[in-house]
């Protein structure tokens, strides 16, 4: 049968500029460029190209350009090219389509329909270059009230639950060693320490090279319980129980045995070469009461010194679920929206399950306030945060802080080619292949990741200044400083935001 499957991209090479140095052959991990030395002929396997642009940027004579393939099926609004290609792939293989990064379907992005207020004439704006501007954020349970002993000086009598202190309300999301390289993790760990924030380990354990940064690292306990060990729990700054992930709500994960190398097996504490299967549920958690038991087992095991977070995918009933989580004893609930990234997910889950993070933040914040327990735990938002404006809007909707994953990887060189699951990342991020890993220098990576945090933090201060606020705390849940543009009445009601003009 003829396989009528046009390539997604076409590799164009300027033959006059090409010097046959074969650099592109060495650079492309997907085998797009092939040179027959005897016949002195090039063959470009366009169908293998993923548009990562590695070859184009490494070509010493800039002879290569990557273009979208002009050859497409006859246009049809329902039977799009992607739909037709997916069907053909599945007809060929009979299996689940695997992909990576976040939701690709053109759902409404609420962030792009929300605008921030600014001060004019009355209540003047503040210049953050001249006046102090507070981005410091504490994550964790806050006391009902504060008792002071003022008998002899002032002393705090209230016992405060452990909190994480962030110098900026932005953290690096959980991306495991195994899904990404140690160089990528090191880059983020160093940046987190420099800027005064945190990164997550994901379910891959903590590589020993990360130990010097452990007080800026949040460890994860997921359903596979990989690497979960008392030393690991005690070493990190906080513990996060992962129930769900925005990119693949309701399903577990499988790290294929081919990726479980000697080093990966050591940090996950599993045999080399065996599949690392994280089941969809935690088998000791079938209810909120069971979740509470795990939260307190972890608190007991770490003598109540570490805040315990619980991460869920944002789904339909996110508000009551989050309330249950906070009532179960979690110090923060992490909401991961449906645009959240991943190293590997079935396409059908990535694109069709879960809800946008914006509505999840608003409904959880609202519900916690209605129940009078907003101070019991923090809200951490993640899943598709692309800029300081998204951070500011997430906080105005009710989040205390955000996690960034994809944005952090883009800072490290990622071009979002969506092939993380192949383990052949051309930019040395989502790979364990030594030759590919060399492409990311952790010194340079740390500088760029820290720069991103600094730049966004600076912009956040400017945003606060324009709003006439001098601390991020004053923006939290302050939905009056947001307006909706082009949203329906119901959308506005769910978001708790007025339409522009009102």
């Amino acid at each position, binding site marked *: 049968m003829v396989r009528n499957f046009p390539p997604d991209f076409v590799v164009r090479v300027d033959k006059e500029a090409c010097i046959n140095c074969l650099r592109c052959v060495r650079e492309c991990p997907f085998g797009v460029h092939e040179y027959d030395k005897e016949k002195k002929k090039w063959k470009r396997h366009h169908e293998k190209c993923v548009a990562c642009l590695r070859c184009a940027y490494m070509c010493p004579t800039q002879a290569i350009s990557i273009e979208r393939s002009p050859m497409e099926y006859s246009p049809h609004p329902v039977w799009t090219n992607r739909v037709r290609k997916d069907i053909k792939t599945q007809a060929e293989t009979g299996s689940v*389509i695997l992909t990576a990064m976040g939701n690709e379907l053109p759902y409404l992005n609420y962030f792009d329909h929300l605008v921030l207020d600014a001060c004019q004439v009355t209540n003047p704006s503040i210049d953050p270059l001249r006046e102090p501007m507070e981005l410091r954020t504490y994550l964790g349970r806050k006391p009902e009230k504060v008792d002071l002993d003022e008998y002899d000086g002032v002393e705090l009598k209230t016992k405060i639950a452990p909190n994480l202190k962030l110098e900026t309300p932005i953290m690096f999301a959980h991306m495991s060693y195994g899904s990404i390289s140690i160089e990528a993790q090191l880059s983020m760990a160093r940046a987190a320490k420099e800027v005064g924030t945190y990164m997550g380990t994901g379910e891959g354990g903590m590589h020993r090279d990360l130990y010097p940064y452990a007080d800026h690292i949040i460890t994860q306990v997921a359903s596979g319980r990989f690497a979960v060990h008392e030393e690991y729990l005690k070493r990190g700054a906080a513990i996060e129980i992962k129930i769900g992930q925005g990119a693949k709500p309701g399903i577990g994960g499988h790290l294929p045995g081919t990726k479980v190398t000697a080093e990966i097996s050591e940090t996950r504490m599993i045999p080399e070469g*065996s599949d690392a299967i994280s089941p969809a549920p935690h088998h000791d958690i079938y209810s909120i009461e069971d979740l509470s*038991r795990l939260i*307190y*087992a972890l608190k007991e*095991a770490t003598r109540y010194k570490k805040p315990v977070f619980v991460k869920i995918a944002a789904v339909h009933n996110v508000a009551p679920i989050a309330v249950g989580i906070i009532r179960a004893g979690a110090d923060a609930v992490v909401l991961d929206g449906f645009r959240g990234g991943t190293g590997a997910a079935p396409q059908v889950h990535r694109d069709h399950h879960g809800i946008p993070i914006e509505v999840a933040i608003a409904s959880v914040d609202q519900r916690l306030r209605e129940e009078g327990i907003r101070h019991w735990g923090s809200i951490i938002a993640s899943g598709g945060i692309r800029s300081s404006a998204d951070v500011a809007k997430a906080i105005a909707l009710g989040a205390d802080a955000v996690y960034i994953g994809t944005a952090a990887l883009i800072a490290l060189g990622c071009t979002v080619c969506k092939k993380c699951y192949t383990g052949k990342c051309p930019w040395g991020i989502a790979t364990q292949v030594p030759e590919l890993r060399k492409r990311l220098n952790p010194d340079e990576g740390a500088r760029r990741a820290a720069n991103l945090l600094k730049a966004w933090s600076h912009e956040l201060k400017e945003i606060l200044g324009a709003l006439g606020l001098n601390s991020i705390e004053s923006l939290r849940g302050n939905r009056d400083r947001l307006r909706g543009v082009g949203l329906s009445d119901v959308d506005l009601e769910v978001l708790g935001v007025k339409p522009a003009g009102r």
Partner: protein
Amino acid sequence: MAATLEKARVSREGEFVVIDAKGMHYRELNELIVRVIEEGAKKLKLINVNGQRFIADGLRGEYYIEIYGVAGDDLAAFANGPTIVVYGDVQDGAGNTMNAGKIVVHGNGTDIIGHSMRGGKIFVRGHVGYRVGIHMKEYREQVPVLVVGGTAGDFLGEYMAGGRIIILGLERLETYPEIVGDWLATGIHGGAIYLRDTIEEDKLGYGAKFEELTDEDYAFLRREIEEFCSYFGGNAEEIMKAKFTKVVPLSHRPFAAMYSDSKEAGH
């Protein structure tokens, strides 16, 4: 915590430090255990324990703890080394994600005993409940072992990735006399389960299969059953005479062929 109460609750008995847990909240009891260990106690006796949770969670070191009464949920979760002998029953999750150590239970165990354990041993004289030994693992020289004198419920060894589970079936339930429930070893991709009985194939979950026992298996079983008898009595020779069934994974890579993308499909 009032010092007088503490004094009344903590006493010495030879080389044991004894804590009377009667009416104590688990948090108070566990705090007290940590305190006496910090003060140098190596052997502890906890009396009047009545369902207090999280005892010895995350405890590192070769301590010896005797528990009189019912130990509550998640006994020795994340523990790394202690030996715990329970003269009574244990509730859900005893040995949950344990890394090393030993739990000897003279009564029964409820659900998810030995969940995700990576090392150490658990011996239960009586029966255990559902989902026991789920996602047990092994790592290098660490091979966890769970031995149950009675029977086990459904989903035994589900998602098992390593370790050994032995169900002896020496005692049976009147209501369900079979040695093990349904969905045995569903999704198993490592380790092995030994049953001291024969079972129908329809009890096996997806990904599990029977395998003949080797001499090595019998030598291993003899060792573990001798240890079992050293705690609870019984004759290892007699116990070994019965027919054993061994359940192992069909594959260590059960999901190898589940996924594809257009590039790998040859398009």
